[in-house]
């Protein structure tokens, strides 16, 4: 993935050249930083999609163990 430099309105603009196509990635000079930038948004999107798909999955029954745990947790919280 190569980087091509060009001047647009006195500002240096960087392009990525690869796979026969030239891209400009939001003014970011390095493909790996651009990848990080897009992966941040993609990872957040993954979280959103996962949350929506599994919104009601796995059930919300409360086990007796969880109830016992909660009672003990409350007792300890009162200590603090």
């Amino acid at each position, binding site marked *: 993935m190569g980087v091509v430099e060009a001047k647009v309105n006195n*500002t*240096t*603009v*960087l392009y990525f050249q690869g796979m026969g196509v030239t891209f400009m990635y*939001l*003014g*970011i*000079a*390095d493909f*790996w*930083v651009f990848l*990080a*930038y897009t*992966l*941040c*948004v993609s*990872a*957040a*999107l*993954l*979280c*959103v999609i*996962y*949350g*929506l798909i*599994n*919104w*009601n*999955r*796995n*059930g*919300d*029954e*409360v*086990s007796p*163990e*969880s*109830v*016992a*745990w*909660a*009672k*003990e*947790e*409350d007792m*300890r*919280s009162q*200590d*603090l």
Partner: protein
Amino acid sequence: MEGTLFLFIITMVYLFVTGYLGYLGYRNTKTATDYMVAGRNVHPAVMALSYGAAFISTSAIVGFGGAAGLFGMSVLWLTVLNIFVGIFIAFVFIGKRTRAMGHRLNVHTFPELLSRRYDSRFLGLFSALVIILFMPLYTSVVLMGAAKFVEVRLGISYEAALLFFSAIVALYVIMGGLKGVMYADAAQGGIMLVGMTILLFLSYYQLGGIRGAHEQLSALAPKAVELFGAAGHRGWTSMPEFGSKFWWSVVSTLVMGVGIGVLAQPQLAVRFMTVKSNVELNRAVLVGGIFILLMTGTAFTVGALSNVYFVNESGQIAFLATGKDIEQIIPEYMKRFMPFWVSDIFFVTLMAAAMSTASGQFHVMGTSAGRDLFNAFGKKLSGNANILITRLGILVTLIASVLLAYILPVFFESGIAIVARGTAIFMGLCAATFLPLFVGGLYTKRITRTAAVWGALSGFIVSLVWLLFVHEKESSVLLVCNALFGRPSLFGDARTGFILWSEVDALFIGLPISTVVTILLSCITKALPQSHLDQCMGMKNNRLLTK
């Protein structure tokens, strides 16, 4: 004057709202039992915001935002890990099993979880000691990050700012913030969300939008190369040169140390247990992903973009314009280039970030000092004695954290990103020590008690030795290597291929070693009794494994 009045008013409003929410939570006794038994649900946004507020601190915003001011947008890889590892993996693959096992074993703290899972008092004692001895380092940099902002915003000395801020946090903790009332934490998360969104929008807007801002930052690359080219800097929108000092600092310490380290954070692991069911964890992933994107994504992007602002104003890059004090980059940026009201909302944002994180940390340190330490010795304390020891533990760790925050800037030379490194050291140490046995213990019955103990010990010892004798940023300050061998790092500038040993973070060495030790010893030592394993993993899991 007008600015100071506004700051005073919104600070008071914030403190009042936080106090009121804490009081409401206390009055309405929305306790764990209420959530589990009375059918009340914690709204997923509340759960995610409270987790996020504990996760993201002033360290992430001021410390790592400042580090991005020096290293550039390459630090955004940490945001990728924060979201993918810290939220997605943590909630989906760690959280659900932690919650299930925690409830089955009726454990309430991280040391208790390890101790019961491996039926080992030593692991309980050891993990409590690691928390008590090393977490104050993390807490101190959280306080430091906020104090640096107060110093610049109010124009007072760092020492006075630290005292002022520590007093607010201590008051919050003493007045009940320690209970970690979920709604107060979530409100703090909400404030952080608003503050950071305004900051991101304005920072891009004033530079002509996303692309325009990045292009201006890319155009500054020659300045970065001129100043730090020898260390591997290639501009603020580029990765540092592969294998260079800067590359190792960014990739091994800042990105991996914190990105991976978050999985074995004692104060975050226990939060999963407070959730009623897996449904809430699924839903919290949605909110958490967006929250972290707006927190660290904003801090790291704005930190890097601040260079454009500083160069346009003074001709100097952010690092030089702030006297090589990395932690002052974000505060100075806010003061010089943002309207006063944005700067003041940001101040409240930082208070919220520091309070929510610090209160969680003090909770963990206090209970480690009280219940965990004494339980490990097989002593059951009476109710009153336990409360006293816990409170004493909180007081001692609070004082230790404040003292460290005073001392650290004296010992570390300027320009070393103390806040970011302090965070990375603690998280890396936790990961190297606990990650294999914690995650392994959730997923497999095969890890033996001996393997868990020696895995933890090997990861901890190797990491400490690496910090003391090899990783130069720390070893040169800790002076042990110099006293024994007459040089700051045993490896100096030695390289093996692209590996520059003195820059490789302790996590890179400690975690693989603890993982290998845990696996190898599990193959050759005696397994825990089947009945104990069934109790830990549950029968459903047992059936799955034996199929």
